[in-house]
């Protein structure tokens, strides 16, 4: 048997008390407060019936309460037997009445305890809110409400929908309601077959999962005509769905490609243009990610804007670190690429351990700004996650900017001059040392920016860099060293290839196959996709 802790005991008593209070108030007009009090003191598993009561006695005004409860911000003041909402702005928490919104300063954390909810309750709450919202002012709210309810079409809901349908003015809402009603008709076995088939045809234009599931059940219907209709409808839906599925996969590929691009583009400069093997490249990315973390620590209340601060900050931090490394180590190892490789690997170890000692080996929490989370629902089967969309765009932006810098600015000119013929450039009076430092700084800085982006996708820890270094090298080598366009093409090729392999082979095998492919490809074309031609390449 469950052990009875003090807390449970109290809760139990309170329930009894709650019931008692209910009975006393029964005579008067059913007011909320006792119910709420009851709610506040009930145990999670006893809460649903109470909520049902609450919904029964209330109208749209209850919404704020339900929402607060849904977000787990509803608290209960033992002393006053009242519920209150906890809100948080700019880091400080305060309590205000969920209905009147008046701030209650008299209360502090110890006097209240949280009214906890679990999944079942959240599910119930969402539906309740939806039911209430059917009569909301804003069309979009109404539409969402209807779509929310598609999965649970009980008779009462259907009745309400039927009641509302004729008066509905907004086209989209009416459509949604029509869908719901059609689903209902289609599922009613006692209705005339013709109506049902008609309903099924209307359904066949929708991509909603609930619709598809309903149709699949209908394919087991005992009426042959209905079955065939359902099958046709399903077929129609499947075709459209597949098209979108393909788009979806393509997007996955592109997004993976953009990550690879971000990770490797800095390397494309340091390795491709300067010919320096920077094994610490991954750590540059890591530094960028940690910079994001620190920035967020410094501005906890402005997470949404933190990214905009983090990007330049990361660029500077990694960039400066890059310049430092170049000046201290790499410039002394000119023309000894293999030694550079080893030295920079040493540096990468040091940087990792440094981060471990400063920030602890644990992963750090980098929260994503609200505008980057969630996804862009194009239709029920196709939705693109926002953060990946942004990162894709961001990667391309960085790429373009970089190309412009290299093509248009004087730095770019010098960089290309040095990369093509160091001595000649020197003779022409180009400060090669300076250019080297700047180039390396640029490459590392961009790696830092990549870190900012990656911090939104994966965990920010000491090993962050390690997991990307090999991939980045693959991309650069595959694309052709010293060729930014090559890097771009390579990144997206590999990304898309991986994503289209994955469903058939599984993630691991896909990765292996891609690696093996690159190894063989390099044997065939040692200079990558876009090799540099002419004597310069010798």
């Amino acid at each position, binding site marked *: *048997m*469950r*052990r009875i*802790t003090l*807390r449970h005991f109290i809760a139990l008593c309170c329930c009894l008390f709650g019931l008692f209070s209910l009975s006393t108030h029964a005579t008067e007009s059913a007011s909320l407060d006792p119910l709420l009090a009851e709610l506040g003191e009930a145990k*999670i598993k006893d809460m649903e019936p109470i909520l049902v009561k609450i919904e029964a006695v209330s109208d749209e005004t209850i919404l704020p309460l339900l929402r607060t409860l849904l977000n*787990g911000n509803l608290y209960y003041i033992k002393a006053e037997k009242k519920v209150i909402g906890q809100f948080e702005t700019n880091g400080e928490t305060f309590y205000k009445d969920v209905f009147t919104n008046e701030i209650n300063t008299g209360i502090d954390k110890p006097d209240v305890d949280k009214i*906890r909810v*679990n*999944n*079942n309750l*959240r*599910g119930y709450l*969402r539906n309740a809110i939806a039911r209430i919202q059917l009569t909301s002012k804003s069309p979009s709210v109404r539409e969402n409400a209807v779509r929310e309810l598609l999965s649970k079409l009980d008779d009462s809901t259907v009745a309400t929908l039927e009641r509302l349908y004729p008066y509905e003015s907004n086209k989209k809402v009416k459509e949604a309601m029509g869908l719901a009603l059609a689903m209902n008709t289609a599922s009613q076995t006692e209705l005339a077959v013709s109506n049902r088939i008609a309903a099924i045809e209307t359904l066949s234009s929708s991509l909603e*999962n*609930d619709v*598809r*599931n309903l149709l*699949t*059940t209908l394919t087991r219907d005992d009426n042959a005509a209905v079955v065939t209709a359902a099958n046709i409808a399903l077929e129609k839906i499947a075709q459209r769905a597949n098209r979108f599925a393909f788009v*979806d*996969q393509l997007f*996955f590929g592109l*997004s*993976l490609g953009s*990550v690879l691009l971000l990770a490797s583009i800095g390397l494309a400069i340091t390795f491709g243009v300067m010919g320096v093997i920077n094994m610490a490249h991954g750590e540059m990315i890591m530094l960028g990610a940690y910079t994001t973390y620190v920035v967020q620590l410094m501005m906890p209340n402005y997470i949404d804007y933190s990214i905009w601060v983090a990007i330049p900050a990361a660029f500077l931090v990694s960039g400066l670190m890059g310049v430092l490394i170049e000046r201290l180590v790499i410039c002394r190892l000119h023309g000894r690429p293999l030694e550079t490789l080893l030295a920079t690997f040493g540096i990468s170890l040091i940087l990792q351990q440094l981060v*471990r000692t400063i920030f602890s*080996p*644990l*992963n*750090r*929490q*980098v*929260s*994503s700004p609200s505008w980057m*989370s*969630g*996804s862009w*629902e194009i239709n029920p089967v196709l*939705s693109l*996650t*926002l*953060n*990946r969309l942004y990162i894709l765009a961001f990667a391309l932006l960085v790429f373009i900017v970089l190309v412009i810098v290299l093509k248009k600015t004087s730095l770019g000119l010098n960089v290309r001059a040095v990369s093509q013929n160091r001595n000649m450039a020197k003779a022409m009076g180009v400060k090669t040392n300076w250019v080297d430092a700047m180039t390396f700084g640029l490459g590392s800085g961009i790696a830092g920016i990549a870190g900012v982006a990656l911090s*939104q*996708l*994966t*965990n920010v*820890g000491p*090993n962050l860099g390690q*997991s990307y270094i090999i991939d980045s090298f693959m991309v650069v080598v595959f694309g052709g060293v010293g060729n930014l366009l090559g890097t771009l093409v390579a990144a997206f090729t590999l990304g898309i290839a991986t*994503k289209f392999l*994955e*469903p058939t082979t*599984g*993630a*691991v095998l896909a*990765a292996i196959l891609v690696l093996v492919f690159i190894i063989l490809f390099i044997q065939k074309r040692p200079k990558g996709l876009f090799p540099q031609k002419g004597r310069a390449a010798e």
Partner: protein
Amino acid sequence: MKIKTLTSAIVLSGATLIALPSLAADTIKVGVLHSLSGTMAISETTLKDTVLMMVDEQNKKGGLLGKKIEAVVVDPASNWPLFAEKGRELLTKDKVDVIFGSWTSVSRKSVLPVLEELNGLMFYPVQYEGEESSKNVFYTGAAPNQQAIPAVDYLMNDLGVERFVLAGTDYVYPRTTNKVLEAYLKGKGVAASDIMINYTPFGHSDWQSIVSDVKKFGSEGKKTAVVSTINGDANVPFYKELGNQGISSEDIPVVAFSVGEEELSGLDTKPLVGHLAAWNYFQSVETPENEAFIKAWHAYTKNSDRVTNDPMEATYIGFKMWANAVTKAGTTDVDAVEQAMIGQTVPNLTGGIAVMNKNHHLSKPVLIGEIQDDGQFEVVWETDGVVAGDAWSDFLPGSKDLISDWTAPIKCGNYNTKTKTCSGQNY
């Protein structure tokens, strides 16, 4: 002259001979075999601190058998062969009386032969795949039937889940757990088409396709849940992807066996609220023992934000039991302590009593918690009473006839109840 030197030599050597044991005698040595560097450092450093804390407390109480306890810490650096080497070092050079250590299965497998060769004693504090019972190891973490099966029961009974995605990192713990679960679910009449199994490499970071597959799998009418044995670093990107693709805990709850307070501290839990984890311990459980433990932990680490987690409780229980067993046996001799251990009881931090069974596994309560936005778990379900850990799963064809019983007359780690034979013992 000659004789003098000779005698003196003898005296000296004799002195050393006496000196050596006396040196060893005045402390009881506890070896700590947790990675302090490398990939596993993230998880294992915490356990090292826990052991040191327990040693401190014990010494404050006057040590054991009137001797002080001395902790010997080594670093196997997340390098599996090193576990064997360092284990040997602890047992032969430092002559420790007991070892607390190791996290991953492979590290345990690596050190196991050394323990059995040198007849050492080790406490293994992490939930693991079972299918093992050694004379020299006590398993204070959860076996599959103490974590996975209750969790699935909860999903089916309380949440009405009918379809299951078994997602895991590709190594032995998830493999075994998922095999056990698959067998169990089929036994419960779940159709093969309603079970989706997926394995990913360590530190897998691009979850787009898999999550969208899960989404599709879950959108076919029946209530679906993900049973996650995804390990360590791969979790953060996984949950982030879930959040971004709009899979809320109401649509498709994820119940994880390797995500605890420590792991959550590394990520923003707002999008995860409502997802589940199954453990034998949650920091949020309100019992006097637990409050005391957390207070002590914060005091010891001088950091009131440090969280506690299940492997720490396992270490705690293990250490207490060992201490009791030593007092009971009146010696630190391995065989004596091993026998004394069986039947030892220690109050759980979550209430109730943990018992060490004949198969070197614990009986513990199983809790299921929902992730809250403050990075803690809210217990939503727990087993009635305690569940006894199974060394050998009844759901695997290879091991359903095997049991482990370290008491006379069987005294065997894997005893085949059919053939009445004992196999695979290394001594």
